[in-house]
């Protein structure tokens, strides 16, 4: 693979949102689409969601997560989209420049006409729910346990308590039961289930795993390894109700206490975030406040269904392609002005080819070194000379100006870039 300097659409993240966006961008006419993924394979978190229930809307089939991902992976690969794996995006600017660190390619810079943010979300951890007690081994987020059990082949414990009735927690309760572990209890501080009812039925009720609403953890017991948790009932203001404490012996505590959109990169690009969702403010095309930067999926707000994430990806991808094509056309009208012999810089840095039809354009520049004899100031394209005038001398302290006239428009149009050289007539 050769990494280009400029892409039409760059998608950050190869989960369901990112894959759908990349596919749709490509179908929408974007030629160069690049997907950047920090993992070593495509698919995102779906790869560890081995349970079925995905794709009922999209495919009218009841699929497990990896299979749902596989269909998008296969389509994306068949369309000639480029993938950069094992690569972190370290920075993104509002000018749509990306700075990457890649295992295979090292440090890389790429420019994009449009960007789709598809970084997904991450789990709330113990620190974010303030659980009192020691900090023993054996406290994990449900998603971490899911990765170990379903992908890497490790069991995190034998006797579990799960805090939070989020979908991942309930699904892990069943999964751990299938693998021979014992799930003692699911505790939920709210008075209602936070995940889907169907998961309560298939994952807890089916296996006789008790769910206690209005309950939370008062204390984690155990110094080196979790030995038990002390649960407690709460009132409607989440205050502990004295006398309701119960010690539940267990060796592992899983947390399924919510997901937060992952927007560290978005902030760097100047994307404004909604404090309620934790994701970017977007319009109906999922464009953020930064023109040309779109966002799709759980990075915007946390969805219950992957099918909706894919739909969001489709809209963001289509819009990103549209933006990129317009941007490409606009930037193709511009030609860069390049400092040549003895020129330090030129202002403006680029010019719109069509602008000459409307009137004169003056190029202002400074020389690198003084030349105390007759000089030529020459503007030329790759092959054609456009204008040449003389000066008695040039000095860095004194700005030099060359004027492009409307009659030069045809020659300028032919050039891909304009170079200015300043040199002694004696060398001509």
């Amino acid at each position: 693979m050769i990494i280009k300097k400029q892409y039409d659409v760059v998608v950050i993240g190869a989960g369901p949102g990112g894959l759908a966006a990349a596919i749709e961008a490509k179908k929408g006419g974007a030629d160069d689409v690049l997907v950047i993924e920090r993992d070593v394979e495509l698919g995102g978190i779906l790869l560890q969601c081995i349970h079925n229930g995905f794709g009922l809307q999209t495919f009218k089939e009841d699929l497990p997560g990896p299979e749902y991902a596989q269909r998008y992976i296969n389509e994306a690969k068949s369309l000639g989209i480029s993938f950069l794996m094992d690569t972190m995006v370290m920075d993104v600017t509002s000018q749509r420049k990306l700075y990457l660190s890649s295992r295979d390619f090292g440090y890389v810079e790429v420019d994009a006409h449009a960007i789709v943010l598809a970084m997904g979300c991450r789990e709330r951890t113990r620190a974010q729910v303030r659980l009192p007690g020691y900090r023993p081994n054996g406290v994990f987020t449900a998603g971490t346990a899911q990765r170990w059990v379903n992908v890497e082949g490790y069991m995190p414990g034998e006797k579990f308590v799960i805090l939070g009735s989020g979908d991942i927690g309930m699904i892990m309760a069943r999964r751990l039961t299938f693998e021979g572990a014992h799930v003692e209890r699911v505790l939920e501080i709210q008075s209602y289930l936070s995940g889907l009812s169907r998961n309560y039925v298939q994952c807890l009720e089916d296996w006789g795993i008790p769910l206690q609403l209005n309950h939370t953890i008062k204390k984690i017991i155990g110094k080196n390894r979790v030995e038990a948790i002390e649960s407690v009932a709460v009132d409607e203001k989440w205050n502990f109700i004295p006398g309701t404490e119960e010690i539940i012996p267990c060796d592992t505590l899983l947390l399924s206490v919510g997901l937060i959109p992952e927007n560290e990169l978005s902030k760097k690009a100047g994307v404004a975030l909604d404090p309620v969702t934790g994701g970017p403010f977007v319009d109906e095309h999922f464009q953020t406040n930064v023109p040309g930067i779109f966002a799709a999926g759980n990075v915007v707000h946390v969805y219950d269904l992957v099918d909706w994430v894919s739909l969001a990806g489709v809209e963001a991808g289509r819009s990103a392609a549209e933006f990129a094509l317009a941007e490409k056309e606009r930037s193709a009208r511009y030609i860069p002005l390049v400092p040549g012999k003895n020129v330090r810089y030129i202002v403006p840095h680029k010019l719109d080819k069509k602008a000459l039809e409307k009137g004169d354009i003056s190029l202002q520049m400074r020389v690198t070194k003084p030349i105390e004899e007759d000089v030529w100031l020459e503007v030329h394209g790759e092959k054609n000379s456009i204008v040449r005038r003389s000066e008695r001398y040039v000095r860095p302290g004194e700005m030099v100006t060359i004027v492009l006239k409307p009659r030069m428009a045809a020659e300028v149009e032919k050039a891909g870039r304009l170079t200015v050289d300043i040199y002694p007539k004696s060398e001509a």
Partner: protein
Amino acid sequence: MEEKNFICTACPMGCKLIVRMEGDEVVKILGHRCRKGETYGRQEAIAPQRMVASTVRIANGIHPLLPVYTKGSIPKRKIFEVLEKIRAIEVPAPVKAEDVIIANVIGTGVDVIASRDMPEK
């Protein structure tokens, strides 16, 4: 007449179903929003079925485990028997998504198939 209450799991809507029974016969189903719910309610009242997803060991794959699932639903009471079978085997990489891993598992008529491609290490 007996009434059974279920939450339909056939889609994420999670409709509340009421199934009226006369002995072993379903006489009326209420609360479903679609046909699938009716089928689910009937089945749940008489002989509950579930799809099962788990993992099998895979030799030489890029991961040590291959996710698999039952292509259709199987009787709920047979789930642990199916899990036993799944746990007992190991398959060699590479595998393609939807490859059959165990055909007609424990005589249910349902195949256990791969949930993803698993390339060789």
